[in-house]
Each structure stands twice: as C-alpha cells, then as structure tokens.
C-alpha cells in the first residue's frame, strides 16, 4: 500500500479546506489536501466537467491552490482514521495510507431530506444535486420543475432553472414570508448576498413563478413520462402540479461522521445545522491535533468557511511550531472577527432551515424512510412504540441506516420520527460513526497482490 506523510492532512477541498491549505502552505507547513472529487471547490464552487478560463470565485480558488505549494490528492475518498491520525483512502490507483501529524476536517454539509410518498421515484433529486447538474455538467434538472425546500437553496435553484430557459411550476417554502422578513437585518450585514437573493425573488415573481410559502410536498407519483406532485398548504389543502423533475431538500446539516469517528466531542446547535463538533475559538476539536472548519463544523456558508479555514490553518501551524504565537495572534484576531461578523447571516439562514418538530406528523405508514433497506414508516414507528429512543436503537430494531449510504439519507427522517414521539432533537444523538465511512471495494482494502505474495505457513508434517 502506498504510504504518504504530511504535517497537516486536510479532508475536503471546498472553500474552508482549500483556503486552509493555501494559508498553511504559505506558513511553510507540509500540507496534503484530500478530496473525493477530481478538483477543488467543494459543492459551492463545483468545478465544471471541462476546465474553463477564469470565470468565477471557484476558478480563482483553484488557481490560487495550484500556485500555493500545497500537495493535492483528488479522487481519493477517506474511509477510516485509526491509530495516531493514520488515514486510509480509496483512490483510482488503489488504497493509500496517509500518516499525518495533524488533521483538519472540512467535509462540508449534506442535505437533509424528509420522506414523503414518492420521494424514492427517479426524477426526484436534491437541491444540491440540482446545483451540481448546473455547475459541473451544464445540464438542467428539467423543463418543468417543482423546487421545494427551506432557506436560500430553493430560490437559488429555481433561478438557475429560469435563467437556463426552463419553467419553475412552483417554488415551495415551508416557512412563511414573515420568516424571511425577520432574517432581513442579518441579510443586510452581507449586502452583496442580500442583493443577489432579492434579485432572484424579483425575477421569479416577474416571471409569474408561483412562490408558495407555508406549503410542503405532500406526495409525488409517476405519470409514466413525468411526475404528478401534490403540494399542501398549512391547512392541508392540496394542489396538483405536473412536472418532469422535483428538486427537494429540507435544509443543510454538517457532516460530522469523521469527527465522531476520531472521538471528538459534539454538541447540538439548531442554528448552525444541528450536531456539530465542539471547537475552541480557533477551530480546535476536543482531541489533540484535530481541527474542523467550514460547513462541516457549522453550516454558515462559503464566506465564513474561508475565515474558519484560515483560522484553523493558523491554529494548526501554531500548534505544529511553524509560527510563533506573537506572529499568529494578530492574524488570528482578524480572522476571528471576520468569522464572527459573517456568522450572523449564517445563523439567520439556519433559523429558516430548522426542521419543524411536526415535519413528519402526517407521513403515511407505507412510506419508505430508509431507502437502502426499504424500511417504511410503520416499521420505524413500531420500533419507537416498542421503546426505541435513539437512532442506534432504531438501527438495531429495523436495519434502517445500515445500508450503503451509511445513514446519510435517512437519519434525518428517523430523527424527525423520534422527535414526533416527544423526544427533543438535542436529545437525539446521531448514530455511532463506523468504519468504513464510505463504501469501499475489497481492492481498496487489500490493494493488488500476486498469489506468491501471500505468506503461507509451512504444511505441518504428516
């Protein structure tokens, strides 16, 4: 197995990880930046399939990274961290082991989904998935699309569809319009983003796109050629919409599995996306030489992620002895202040994306909750009635969250059903993080070998 050494291994090359790599490399730290995608940028600055001339922030970030001196290992997926920060990766050339003095986790956020009848149908995709189709592939999710979800992601996707010449048959937001008005003061702390958001809404309204506040997706059914989407208002009144795709999400949550695998403490903060690693003011986790930054540490968006990445890189460089405290302190102070300022908008968006405690109150028993194992709501509810009060207990009772996705898709649904039974969200821990973090082929464990390489014991004497 190929073994690499690094002073600082950074997992995730989005805005937090890439900026941390650039900053740490500039301080003379030997950095290895790891990402499962073929290029840096994360989901927010997703690289296009065909590299293009400098167009946007993502291209500028990739150029700065290429000139930074940080080593990059793309198309490599982390599936285990063991021992003293020994990372096991699965890459196109086989398994790779990385021995690092320090690790920075910048694995970003993933979408939450709330199940509804028909959410497993082909043609129903995530909101982040829709942005990947646009940014990476230049492909629209559909010509006639229902877009649904809380917070800023749904209007962003709706606007991309409109700009590309498609039609948004409905934009569905669970929050009332007044919730957006309440977020306005925080939005105005980031005028550029506020202006862009306002422009999306004006352009959608002008185009006659129905914007349905306090509505939710009730169900989707296949029509053979497309989808029939039922949308309910807060009184339960249902309307039907014909669409060729449904882009739907229920907010963003940090990916904490890597932090939990190494035994880092976590805490619950609804406004920052739910369960997040416990960090000091500079991104240090509760285990030594381990740091976290970006949406994987707290969902706040791309701009705060840059400052959090810079700050964690400075903290790591300080702890590794590459920079002296008196030199680091003024730099860190600047980043801390910028992070704090940018956090206000992140928290306001977090409030918009907080799941309602009653999100799955009317989910029919026959609906699939765990897609990998085809476990329905009836089975999950029965396990809760039988006394399950944790996601781990639901796993043991029903096999939910034990399929190939590792619970990434269904744990939110399970959590919402537990919450429905009267347990507070902050008392519902995520399931125990287990190796492998991601599905890994057997060749990723063993590498390639010749039969003659296998040590065979001498046959015992007859």
């Amino acid at each position, binding site marked *: 197995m190929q073994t690499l050494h690094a002073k600082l291994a950074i997992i995730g090359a989005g805005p937090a990880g890439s900026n941390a790599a650039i900053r740490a490399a500039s301080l003379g730290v030997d950095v290895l930046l790891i990402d499962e995608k073929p290029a840096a940028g994360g989901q927010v600055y997703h690289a296009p*399939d065909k590299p293009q001339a400098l167009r946007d922030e993502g291209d500028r970030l990739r150029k700065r990274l290429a000139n930074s001196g940080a080593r990059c290992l793309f198309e490599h997926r982390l599936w285990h961290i063991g021992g003293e920060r020994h990372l096991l990766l699965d890459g196109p050339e086989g398994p790779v082991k990385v021995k690092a003095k320090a690790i920075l986790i910048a694995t970003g956020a993933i979408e939450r989904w709330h199940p509804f009848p028909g959410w497993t149908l*082909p043609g129903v*995709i995530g909101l*982040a998935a829709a942005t990947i189709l646009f940014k990476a592939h230049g492909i*629209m999710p559909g010509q006639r699309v229902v877009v649904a979800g809380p917070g800023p992601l749904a209007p962003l996707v709706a606007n991309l569809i409109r700009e590309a010449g498609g039609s948004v048959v409905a934009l569905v937001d669970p929050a009332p319009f007044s919730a957006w008005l309440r977020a306005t003061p925080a939005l105005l702390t980031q005028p550029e983003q506020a202006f862009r958001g306002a422009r999306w809404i004006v352009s959608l309204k002008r185009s006659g796109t129905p914007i349905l506040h306090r509505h939710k997706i009730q169900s989707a059914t296949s029509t053979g050629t497309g989808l029939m989407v039922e949308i309910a208002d807060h009184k339960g009144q249902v309307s039907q919409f014909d669409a060729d795709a449904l882009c739907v999400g229920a907010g963003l949550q940090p990916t904490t599995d890597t932090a939990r695998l190494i035994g880092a403490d976590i805490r619950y903060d609804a406004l920052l996306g739910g369960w997040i690693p416990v960090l000091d003011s500079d991104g240090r986790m509760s285990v030594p030489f381990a740091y976290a930054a970006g949406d994987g540490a707290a969902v706040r968006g791309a701009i705060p992620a840059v400052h959090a990445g810079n700050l964690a890189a400075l903290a790591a460089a300080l702890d590794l002895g590459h920079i002296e405290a008196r030199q680091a302190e003024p730099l860190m102070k600047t980043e801390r202040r910028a992070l704090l300022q940018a956090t206000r908008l992140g928290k306001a968006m977090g409030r918009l994306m907080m799941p309602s405690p009653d999100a799955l109150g009317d989910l029919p028993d026959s609906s699939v909750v765990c897609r990998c194992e*085809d476990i329905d709501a009836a089975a999950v509810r029965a396990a809760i009635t039988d006394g399950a009060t944790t996601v781990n207990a639901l796993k043991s009772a029903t096999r939910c969250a034990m399929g190939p*996705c590792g619970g*990434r898709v269904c744990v939110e649904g399970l959590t919402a059903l537990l919450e429905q039974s009267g347990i507070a969200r902050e008392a519902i821990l995520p399931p125990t993080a287990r190796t492998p973090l991601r599905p890994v082929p057997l060749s990723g464990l063993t590498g390639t070998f010749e039969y003659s390489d296998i040590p065979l014991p001498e046959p015992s004497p007859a």
Partner: protein
Amino acid sequence: MSTASPTLRIQTFARGEACCFLLDDEPIAAFEGETIAAALWAVGIRSLRHSPQRKDPRGALCFMGSCQECKISVDGVLQEACRTRVRHGLQVHRIDHADPTR
C-alpha cells in the same frame, strides 16, 4: 440511439468531445468529462436500479456520491454513476436490468 438532447443541456456551457457509451448495450450520446449519471439524466433516463425489497425503481438522488442510489455496473465493476466519468465505448449495465423478477 438516444441523442444528446439539446433541451436539458445548456447551449452556452463548454463541453468536452462528443462521445458514445453503451447502457445495457444501447448507445448513448454524451460528452467526455460528464459523469454517467449526468449523461443519462440529460437524455431522460432516470431509472437506474430497483430497491432490494419492494423492487421500486430508483435513480440518482444526491449526484455527489452520498446516497448510493445510482449504483451501476461499469465494465463489470459496481460504481456510483454520479462519480464515474463516461468514455467512448464504456460498457455500462443497470445491475438488475436483465432480471425479469425485478
């Protein structure tokens, strides 16, 4: 042959060379650099496999390698369609396509 539909592919987007791969032995027009999941989405192919118990049709959900819904056989090896790039002549099979019970 399914043609690369102009309707879902945005005209102004810079693409790689046109190419052609095989899905269940049927030719699919695509562009180098696209993932299998994106190329199939662009030509309107949404259903990629069936669920293990109910045998319900499933397709790509997250397009980022999380959900594992788009698992497909690529040159005989199980892969995520959303993380595997098309190449000219690539042989792709839906894993349960030939199974009449599904």
